[in-house]
């Protein structure tokens, strides 16, 4: 870890102004920042702490939806009665993430900005080549140990998976990210690596997330987050799915369906093809299982991670069946 200066922002605009400079990073909880600094991946000259700024940790749930202040703690959102009632997938995505100690410290905006767990990205001393860290230097993961790498949204330059859970649930329910400058639909917020894996989000220098807004929906109300992993707790997803389901009045025809995937793609991944294939269909296991195969359309395996292509449709299927009472 390189030494850095530490200061507290006096206001959002102060923080915004200061982070326009190169080498200055915001700290919104610090659980990820300190970790990456220890790995030698993130080497800020200055860290600006925004955790003491007031008014950014409100959680509001109304008929229209939820507004989550950027500095809300993961644990606070996970335990919020309104979120649990209206957006169970969001609450579950948080309570299944990290550990209680981390959830008590980490903020939800910081969580969105969490960076990949790619072992090669996190180990610059051993693996200097990483297009994410050093554009043009190459990708050490290709040809390496790739069990946890992405099968969707990859490029020749990068196969690192997006590790988070919350963003997957937010993507399923069309959340909007509010920043100091604008409102960004979450579907546009994360950037696939393409030829520029070092660019991970739309955020510009000095732009700060202030809130996350999630519209209410029947699908969000009836939703779940299914996270599959070898270890029962405190592990990133081998594959996960945030799913919301709304049935017609007949109780069996699918009116609305939301499916987003985690742990398998370079960004939180919306499985729109699955949604389209099933909306209007009668909910039954065979139909769901068949349609769920569309979730991995275009998936590319890189050695050890081939199992994810088999696993994803099963996770999607189970999540839908669970919501439909058929699991």
């Amino acid at each position, binding site marked *: 870890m390189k030494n850095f200066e530490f200061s507290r922002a006096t206001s959002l605009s102060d923080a915004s102004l200061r982070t326009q400079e190169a080498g200055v990073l915001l700290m919104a909880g610090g659980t990820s920042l300190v970790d990456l600094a220890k790995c030698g991946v993130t080497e800020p000259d200055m860290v600006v702490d925004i955790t003491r700024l007031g008014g950014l940790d409100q959680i509001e749930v109304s008929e229209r939806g939820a507004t989550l202040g950027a500095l809300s703690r993961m644990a606070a959102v996970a335990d919020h009665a309104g979120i649990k009632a209206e957006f169970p997938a969001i609450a579950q995505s948080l309570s299944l993430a990290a550990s209680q100690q981390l959830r008590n410290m980490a903020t939800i905006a910081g969580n969105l900005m969490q960076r990949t767990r790619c072992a090669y990205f996190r180990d610059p001393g051993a693996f200097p080549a990483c297009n994410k860290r050093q554009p043009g230097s190459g990708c050490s993961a290709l040809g390496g140990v790739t*069990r946890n790498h992405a099968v969707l949204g990859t490029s020749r330059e990068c196969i690192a998976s997006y590790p988070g859970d919350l963003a997957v649930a937010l993507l399923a329910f069309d959340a909007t990210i509010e920043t100091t400058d604008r409102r960004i639909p979450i579907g546009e917020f994360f950037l696939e690596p393409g030829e520029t894996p070092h660019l991970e989000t739309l955020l510009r220098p000095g732009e700060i997330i202030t809130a996350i807004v999630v519209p209410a929906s029947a699908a969000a109300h009836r939703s779940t987050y299914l996270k599959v992993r070898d270890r029962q707790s405190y592990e990133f997803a081998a594959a996960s799915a945030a799913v919301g389901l709304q049935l017609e009045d007949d109780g069996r025809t699918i009116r609305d369906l939301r499916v987003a995937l985690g742990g398998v793609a370079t960004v939180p991944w919306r499985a729109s093809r699955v949604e389209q294939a099933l909306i209007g269909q009668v909910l039954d296991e065979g139909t769901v299982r068949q349609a769920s195969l569309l979730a991995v359309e275009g998936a590319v395996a890189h050695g050890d991670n081939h199992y994810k292509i088999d696993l994803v449709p099963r996770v999607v299927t189970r999540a839908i069946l669970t919501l439909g009472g058929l699991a």
Partner: protein
Amino acid sequence: MTLIEPRKHGDASDGSLGSRLSRLDGRRKITGSATYALEQPVENLVHAVLVQSTIASGRVVSVDKAAAEALPGVLMVLTPDKVFNMMVASDWFGNRVENVPYLPLPAEVNYYGQAVAAVIAETFEQARDAARLVKVHYEETPAVTVIDQGGSGTVTAPMTVEWGDAQAAFDTADITIEAEYRTPREYHVPIEPHGLIASWQDDQLTIWEPSQWTHGMARTYAEWFEIPFENVRIISPFIGGGFGSKGGAYFYGAVAALAARELARPVKLAVTRSQGFTAYGGRASTRQTLKLGASADGVLQAVIHRGANETSTYADFHEGTGAATPIMYAVNNFSSQQGLIKVNTVTPGALRAPGKNPSAYGIECAIDELSYAVGIDPLEIRLRNYADHDYQSGKPWSTRKLREALLAGAERFGWSNRSAAPRSMRDGRTLIGWGIGCGTFPNLTNSSDAMIRILSDGSVEVESAGIDMGQGTYTIVAQTAADALGVSVDRVDVKLGDSVSAGAPVAGGSMLAGSITGAVHKAAQAAREELIGLALNAPNSPFSTSGANTLVIENGRIKTSREDSPSMSIGELMAMLGREKLEVKRDTLPEGTTREEQQKAFTHMSKVRGPTAGEFSIHSWGAHFIEVRVDEDFGTVRVSRIVSAFDCGRLYNPKLAESQLRGGIIMGIGQALLEEGLVDARNGRVVNNNLGDYLVPTNADVPPIEILSVGEPDFEASVLGGKGVGEVGIVGVAPAIANAVFHATGKRVRDLPITLEKLI
């Protein structure tokens, strides 16, 4: 300084050997007041940080250290080209090559992550920053980074075990099975990382370092620096887990002690979590092929075992995959061979139940496979092939309550309710499987020395260089002394983990408890006799007119056996005698042992007696009954219930023994389902060298575990009748889980860990 303050609970958990007294060091550990090695407040301390190689094979040509040395606070950069006057130390068994210089930072690079330089600076941060600026230039040579690149290996002939004609019996058997089983590299990852503080005063070296063997480590440091054993003091009162990794001094200890001597200042060297994957070796990856031949009714006719493990390119370490194979079952035709495959890795080391653990994984899976091939219940096939004596040595067992363990475990688990066919038990989309795995660990014995000190107030101190890394030594030593002396346990203060104290063998091979309690018992009995003699013969003794020729001590009071006897407390006797203290030291070495031999007994392994050294074959035994739940779509395995029954002889403290067995079982869950050192074959780097990526079980992965004890005192095994507890707990867990997974899914996964992709 009182390290441990005994407490009295006022209930049945107080008191004597065999009771369920809670750990005497527990409160200090959970309240944070137990001071570990790297937390020692030492003045004038400077800090060392290691620089590690970024190649797997080759040599260091040059080291550019100018930039590092230019940083403020940097005191010294140690590199391979700087040779100090140190000598190679003897190995664990006392073999020493004379007059060979010891190079803790050799120029020859044998594995990725090997330390090639060290920076010492005023602060840790300065040392860390400077270490990053050290530029190492290498000449790289081709490397073998994973076991599969290493060919078939070389058979180690002395490890071959043969009797009967295994091949002929296999060829003519009614039913045969053949399978290959693999285990990956596994790591100790104790929660307290390694490291030390080294400090010199003239030619006296003091080391604060977590140690499973203070005498052995002190001997190593003494030999490195060519100073008398007495000049080295290893202090290790508390240890945050070792599992075999803290039994010896490693190169980084030499680096810290060397730097401390050169700089004439105390040096702290903390091995980081990631460095813990290369600073010392974990369990070697193994592979073994088993061929079993049986009659149609499931009676074993032949066992053919061929095993191999990876070792380093510069030293041989045998992870004996055939260690348990010959003693588990009755068989008249047996053949086992063990090979080594050289890989560019740090030399593997002992990790909880070395040898026995992967060995049991092989044979216990194979016997399960045979049970299905023959169509006999996995419990029944084990009983049908029960070994009534040790077929390898031909000797009778001292005690072997494995049958009792199997029957008691089966009863408690409800094994008779199992439906035999794979995939026949389910709960919705969850497949349920039940499996058995048996385990064993040899009873190793060695002598100990112990000091008992009666103080003027009648309280008791016990001193030993033996250690407590969580297994409960403090507590059982206090119980043993209290029992033998006739005082309550809260009057006993135990001091452990200091190499200047009375000698003890390594806390390894599950041998410390049996050894240390023997010496403490002997010393305490001698102290008791001495107190009684003093009480009888003292001028003004209240017993002088009693006519008694001996006395008893009960609850700290000395009296005759008559009900109307006068009595006095031990403190009153000491006051009457005007004594400040009374010291009694006793060891369990053979009569007439010379001082030199005594020294060897505690600083080497050469005096350790194996399980068949006498007329019996002596081992601990266990049987695990495990239920798993496997998601039929996801392949995720969760262990949902465990009943394990053990024969570990007499349990000195059942609560602590169960706790240790439970710890072994939890480690076995990790081995079966989670743990695997992942090596990038391109450079030999362990890529999951941290606790975020190297997965061990969390609380959520650990189901209720019920421990049954079916053992009886075995006085062939130890003075007080206990057999080893520390290691047998893990042995047999992985095969029980693998067998349960097969029962649940019908899929036989033969390489650990059983991760989800192997089941979907």
